[in-house]
């Protein structure tokens, strides 16, 4: 191993700095000026540094380091390769925006003291960075659980509300179960040499059965964190419960870290990849994405909607991972690299755009104190900054060209188009279905995002709070602007970043898209005649065309513009309350995908003088999977309770019988 270069130490320094900043937050915990205006910007600066360092060293050779900390036999190992650096970049750049936003966001008197929040927030960041650079099972798990724990405390900031406590509990419980799965996975992967460094796992030779066990344990563990259906139940509860910058971090960064885990285990630590793993992952991913999109469409709470949209995106990410595994297993390395690049690209996209949206809901929440879509509306007038920047995020998440979301979807669809070439007769038939489903999901995402944006920012204010909203402060604007700029840049210049991503795929798959990325402006993942996409040209020509049309119309047209009341179809009392509600907007989806939902509806009778309409849309999984498990535990525990029934004679009898039984056993 070469001498670690200074960049490695710089990378290490950032998590340390974050923890230090967090601890400083305790010094004057109640002072918004200190915590908000000093520490959070510092944290953001550290994030920026991390991102830049990672960007600069993305092509550098792998470096590793052993820290003099940790267990006796197992010191903390640290390793920086291209995959780790890519995710550090993601953490760094995303947290920069979120950090700047948070600097303006947190105010005194909201639940937990700002100083404590600052500590939890920065420890959360630091733990995510450490997860990525950890190179042994123990450090990985410590960082992983610290991440869960710090985010748990962030989620329960508003712990006075019962539903938030419940959300926190479910979150931590599932996170813990997931961590157990990961632990088991590491246990399987060391394959008898009892070295828990990742290097030892790389060297281990596993039989296919054990390798599969390890893979599925990893899928379970990381899937629980990522919100893979059916382990998703915590996500729509916990993400909305947290303060918005934290939701942004959780959705935008933490979920991607889970994907990192899957990639690390599958492509780096395991030495074989079986094609059917990919098929299962892909299937789960597809179902998750469809599930997330469909549920997002019927939500009435803006943050819940975004949380479900995160589930959808996680599904897409796992889809990409699965596709990559399949290609890799069939030794189609170039295509595997393509799918991987699409996945990683989508990680970054999702990190930026989902953070952007969550942050903008934070601004809306601050301005109106309202989360329910049914009470917002028309905020584009009162909050133009937030609204226009959120529009960027909306279009990006919806996967529309020429923004970034489209790039990764485009790459993924391209990868799908090669699945008929797979040398396996069923798989190559089945997989194009995946493309169909992906297309459906992408279209649904657009539906969801129109609902999200339209109901919050467009139309007329539905309640007074929305009518009196104020736009966000300067720091918040900078944070939003940073993320929005990221979305646009990634959308327009995908090629340079994809070229950087080649380092990752070279490291993991031994192949890259190298020669296909010759033109900086033209994206040709496989071959120019096969497919090409040039977002720059696309964007430029759109702008030019719009400008030309505007100018042309200006040139020929001289009419005036008159403002008037909207046309009411002859109905005299058109009030803002007659706009389509969030429920109404989701209604067609609810109807089409009815089997997905567990719907409880109370319709008023025709003669009711004060009619009430109530509908509850719930998740089947909760009732079909989690509730029975909880019931089972309760039943067993009541059986176990019978053991302890208070009578001393019975207790003595237990001892006696135990003794007799053991004696008989020994005899």
């Amino acid at each position, binding site marked *: 191993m070469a001498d670690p270069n200074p960049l490695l130490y710089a990378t290490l320094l950032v998590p340390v700095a974050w923890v230090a900043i967090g601890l400083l937050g305790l010094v004057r915990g109640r002072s918004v000026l200190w915590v908000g205006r000093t520490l959070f910007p510092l944290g953001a600066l550290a994030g920026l540094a991390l991102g830049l360092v990672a960007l600069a060293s993305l092509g550098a050779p792998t470096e590793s380091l052993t820290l003099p900390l940790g267990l006796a036999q197992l010191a903390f190992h640290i390793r920086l390769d291209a995959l780790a650096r890519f995710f550090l970049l993601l953490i760094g750049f995303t947290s920069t925006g979120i950090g700047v936003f948070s600097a303006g966001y947190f105010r005194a008197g909201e639940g937990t003291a700002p100083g404590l929040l600052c500590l939890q927030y920065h420890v959360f960041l630091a733990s995510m960075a450490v997860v990525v650079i950890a190179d042994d099972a123990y450090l990985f798990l410590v960082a992983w659980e610290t991440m869960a724990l710090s985010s748990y405390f962030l989620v329960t900031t508003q712990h006075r509300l019962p539903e938030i406590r419940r959300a926190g509990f479910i979150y931590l419980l599932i996170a813990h179960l997931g961590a157990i799965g990961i632990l088991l996975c590491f246990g399987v992967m060391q394959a008898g040499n009892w070295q828990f460094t990742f290097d030892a796992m790389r060297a281990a030779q596993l039989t296919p059965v054990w390798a599969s066990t390890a893979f599925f344990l990893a899928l379970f563990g990381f899937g629980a964190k990522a919100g893979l259906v059916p382990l998703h139940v915590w996500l729509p509860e916990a993400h909305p419960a947290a303060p918005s910058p934290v939701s942004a971090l959780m959705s935008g960064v933490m979920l991607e870290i889970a994907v990192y885990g899957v990639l690390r285990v599958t492509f780096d630590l395991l030495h074989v990849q079986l094609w059917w793993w990919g098929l299962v992952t892909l299937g789960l991913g597809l179902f998750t994405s469809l599930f997330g999109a469909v549920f997002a469409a019927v939500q009435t709470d803006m943050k819940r909607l975004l949380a479900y949209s995160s589930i959808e995106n996680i599904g897409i990410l796992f889809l990409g991972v699965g596709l990559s595994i399949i290609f890799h297993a069939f030794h189609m390395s170039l295509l595997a690299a393509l799918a991987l690049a699409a996945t990683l690209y989508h990680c970054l996209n999702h990190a930026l755009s989902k953070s952007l949206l969550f942050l903008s809901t934070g601004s809306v929440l601050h301005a109106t104190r309202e989360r329910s879509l049914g009470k917002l509306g*028309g905020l584009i007038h009162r909050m133009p900054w937030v609204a226009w920047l959120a529009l960027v995020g909306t279009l990006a998440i919806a996967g529309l*060209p020429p923004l970034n979301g489209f790039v990764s979807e485009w790459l993924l669809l391209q990868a799908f188009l090669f699945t*008929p070439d797979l040398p396996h007769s069923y798989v190559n038939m089945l997989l194009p279905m995946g493309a169909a489903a992906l297309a459906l999901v992408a279209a649904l995402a657009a539906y969801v995002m*129109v609902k999200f944006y339209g109901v919050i920012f467009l139309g007329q204010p539905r309640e007074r709070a929305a009518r009196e909203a104020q736009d966000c402060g300067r720091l918040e604007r900078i944070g939003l602007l940073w993320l929005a700029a990221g979305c646009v840049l990634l959308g327009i210049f995908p090629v340079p970043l994809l070229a950087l991503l080649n380092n990752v795929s070279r490291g993991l798959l031994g192949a890259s898209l190298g020669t296909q990325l010759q033109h900086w402006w033209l994206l040709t993942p496989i071959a120019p005649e096969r497919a*090409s996409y040039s977002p720059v040209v696309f964007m430029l020509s759109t702008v030019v065309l719009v400008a*030309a049309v505007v100018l042309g*119309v200006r040139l020929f047209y001289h009419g005036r513009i008159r*403002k008037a009341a909207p046309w009411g179809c002859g109905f005299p009392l058109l009030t803002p309350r007659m706009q*389509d509600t969030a429920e109404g*907007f989701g209604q067609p989806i609810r109807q089409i995908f009815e089997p997905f939902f567990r719907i409880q509806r109370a319709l008023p009778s025709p003669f009711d003088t004060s009619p009430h309409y109530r509908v509850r849309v719930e998740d089947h999984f909760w009732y079909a999977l989690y509730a029975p498990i909880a019931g089972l535990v309760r039943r067993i525990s009541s059986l176990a309770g019978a053991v302890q029934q208070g009578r001393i004679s019975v207790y003595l009898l237990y001892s006696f019988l135990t003794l007799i039984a053991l004696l008989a056993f020994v005899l």
Partner: protein
Amino acid sequence: MNITTLITQLTEVILAVIAAPLLMGWVNQCRSWLQNRRGAGMLQPYRQIRKLFHKDAVIAAHASPLFRLVPYVQFASMCLAAAIIPSLWTGLPFAVAADTIALVGLFATARVFLALAAMDIGTAFGSMGARREMLVGFLAEPALLMVFFTASLISHSTSLPTIVETLAHGRLAIYPSLAFAGVAFLMVLLAENARIPVDNPATHLELTMIHEATVLEYSARHLALIEWSVALKLFNYTCIGLALFLPWGLAAGTHSPGDLLLAIPITGLKLLVAGFGLALIESLNAKLRIFRAPEFLATAFLLAVLGLLVHLLLGS
């Protein structure tokens, strides 16, 4: 890329922009004839656009800038689409910038903006229209994409000119999968362009309208642009259909300007036939209930997927 191809490209776009209302007029005229009416003549769309451009605009008091931006975006994206679609020849230099997937994305962008604009006013109709528009979109889009996929699996490319070139100038082959795709495409075309049986472009009946509800608040130049882009959209879709399923007669990228000149009348003829067919379909069908529209589109989606499967199964 040289100046000639650039000029050809521009010519094609301009031709499309100009010819689009004509196609719309032709379809309407055919429909009138089929319904035993005299009709307003094929040039009626031009007159309407001209009239709208001369009016003063009325805009709802609480419309946001987004509302006023959307018609331009709408029109620009349809122009862009026209630049990608090989309506006359396959050597379009601009097609490198966007393949079929990007084309679908472009249509989606236009639709999303339209839906957002519809919601901007905050009336019951606007948001209802937006919802229905998106509903149609989310089912039609994947179907369209599947149609493209079938074609691109045949030609091993997602680039539209390459696809068309393979289909038109390659070895003559019968593709059963394309039959499925063709039917699916037709259904998508009907739905996307607000034609019967999914929507009725001529109605303003509140309960059934889809597209009209979204543009209810537009007037004058904005409405003109929207109307024009709607016509352009129909033109684009028809050209896509022609390029995919009746590609013969298109000029290949390497051919001389003579071929190009020849392609103009051929395409024109094909458009006339297609327009008549469209009118025929519209006249023979009744409008579906709005709740049936998803079923209609789901069928389209299934047919497209079926086409894909057939291709994989038969290898053709």
